[in-house]
């Protein structure tokens, strides 16, 4: 697969577009951005304006305030961000480690049961997560692992298959001769993987890490079920816990949303090329 960015650069001629397509692009961008823009606007409005008949739909708050932000910070939304960072980092570290080892073997050697192993990995990435919830809850309950960072181990179901898949695609691109040379120099398989292959596949490793991090950061169902204790809530769960039974304080929720989206925005802006490569890895045959 050629990288999306390089294809764009190497194409010499710039096309002229008819205005209709420009209009469609503009409309698309507006639809994509509008929800974020609107919560940003709301987050600076005091409660009375959010619920007021005339003020609810004003573009700019009459009396802008940062109270919503101070309130949600006092309610501990940043603790949830901290939990999300911890949980996502743990998951990323061990998943990249485990996926590298397996992908190396799958990409480099042929063995009996290889197709079955790949089918298993692909199958797991497809099945409904709901199927593991009951048994995993019972397992965590019996082992007294509820309300802890052990939840990251259960995250392997949602992150490991795609991580292995992306890694295989990237490991395959490294020429066999490089590894053979290393083996002649006396490297073991273990050394060949970590000293030669892994650093050479750094872009792929990085893509895998980013994709795993985002998947762990976005996980909702497992944390909701296994970590009911507020102290272990991650961002998606904590922000929904701000909804109370009877009233929804949109000012606080929009402020919290703006705060928790910032890390995602930074990741997208910095690593968009890796993300695009991660999304399309394995989807297109070379």
């Amino acid at each position, binding site marked *: *697969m050629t990288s999306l960015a390089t294809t764009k650069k190497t194409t010499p001629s710039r096309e002229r577009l008819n205005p209709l397509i420009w209009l469609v692009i503009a409309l698309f961008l507006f639809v994509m951005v509008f929800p974020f823009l609107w919560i940003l606007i709301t987050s600076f409005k005091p409660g009375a304006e959010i619920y007021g008949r005339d003020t609810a739909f004003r573009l700019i708050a009459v009396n802008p305030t940062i109270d919503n932000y101070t309130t949600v910070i006092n309610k501990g939304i940043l603790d949830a961000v901290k939990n999300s960072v911890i949980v996502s980092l743990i998951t990323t570290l061990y998943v990249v480690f485990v996926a590298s080892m397996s992908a190396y073997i799958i990409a480099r050697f042929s063995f009996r049961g290889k197709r079955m192993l790949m089918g298993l990995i692909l199958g797991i990435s497809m099945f409904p997560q709901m199927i593991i919830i009951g048994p995993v809850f019972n397992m965590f309950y019996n082992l007294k692992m509820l309300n802890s960072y052990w939840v990251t181990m259960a995250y392997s179901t949602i992150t490991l298959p795609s991580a292995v898949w992306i890694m295989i695609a990237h490991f395959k691109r490294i020429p066999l001769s490089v590894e053979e040379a290393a083996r002649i120099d006396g490297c073991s398989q273990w050394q060949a993987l970590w000293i030669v292959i892994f650093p050479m596949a750094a872009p792929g490793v990085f893509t895998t890490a980013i994709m795993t991090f985002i998947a762990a950061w976005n996980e909702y169902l497992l944390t909701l079920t296994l970590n009911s204790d507020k102290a272990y809530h991650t961002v998606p769960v904590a922000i929904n816990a701000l909804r109370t039974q009877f009233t929804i304080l949109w000012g606080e929720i929009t402020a919290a949303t703006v705060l928790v989206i910032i890390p995602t925005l930074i990741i997208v802006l910095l690593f968009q090329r890796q993300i695009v490569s991660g999304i399309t890895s394995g989807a297109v045959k070379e």
Partner: protein
Amino acid sequence: MTWRQFLFVLPLLLLVSVFSLYPIITSGVYSFFDYQTNDQTRNAMYTGGHLNAPLFHEDGKYLNFYLKKDLQLVDEPGQATIAALQADIEAAIEPYAQKKEPITLPQPEEERILAVIGEIRQRIRSLEEAYPGTELNISENADTLLKEMETCIVGSNFIGLKGYQRLVGDTRFFAALRNTLVFTVISVFFELIIGMGLALVMNRSIRGIGIVRTVSLIPWAIPTAVSALIWTYLYDGTSGIVARVFTQLGLIASPELLLTSAGGTMAAAIIADVWKTTPYMALLLLAGLQVIDRGLYESASVDGAGPMRTFTQITLPLLKPSLLVALLFRTLDAFRVYDLIAVLTKGTPETLSIYAYKVMIGQGNYGYGAVIVLAMFLCVGLIALLYVKVLGAELMND
């Protein structure tokens, strides 16, 4: 595979076994039992008879407690009768004093315990008959306690295929299946159409087209549970701007309908899903478009093919493998939708995931919940098979 190579794969196999295979097999086992965690007689899987020993012991203690009170109400021979009865009850429950969990009960044991309970009932009745004028404490409570002691003997809750039988007649399940299919088909349809258009636009070399890609990554990258919450606000009956705009456009009769009516919630969920995942579809299709040899398009235009003909004769056939993968991934993803609907409307329209979660975690009915998720599993398998067979691409070749 050498054993060294096997060691490299071992961590993966362990994680997969513990967190994927074991739960699936366990779900299969659950599905054969009437296993409900909030019901004392069914809170584990029993293949044989069981005695709820702690409760049995407690009930016996209560019997003796009331009998002790009655000691003051009767004469001396009566006291002797009661003391003997107390001693026998104590003897009957004593073996279970230290038990904290239900214990297995062989058939002869079960009959013996039932006989003992029957005998105690008989002796209490004779006691009552001996003192017709006295209001004994035991008379008021014996029936309830003895009945409870009998229910402490729990039969097997193995139900075999009855759970599956129940599923076949479960209209709520089929309603959830229909909702899931409607949601999946409509969402994926719009995602495909819009995503294809978007991919074709992004594939052209226009200055600044990169910004379209950057912007479209943002909805994909944020947690579904967060984006669903954003949409809950946009759809809100009083403060939601989308609900208001839709009302003014005449799409809905009044703003609160989006999150309260059946059609409204379905439309709301589909719009939010299309908003979030169309970019993902577009990127997958774009990757497929970019491996198509540009020379083919030049030859087509030399031969005088119009854009429509080029699209149907060159782009579509060559895009087929990518199209299949994108469609398959998106269909399965939409089919298991949970976060979006759980957050948006707290569970309407009820999809299969929502229904399964309510039964399993909400009601603690792990047995029937497992039946539902296994049915989902089957559907997912059928969908995957359908794609591979009908569209005929080879996913697994390497």
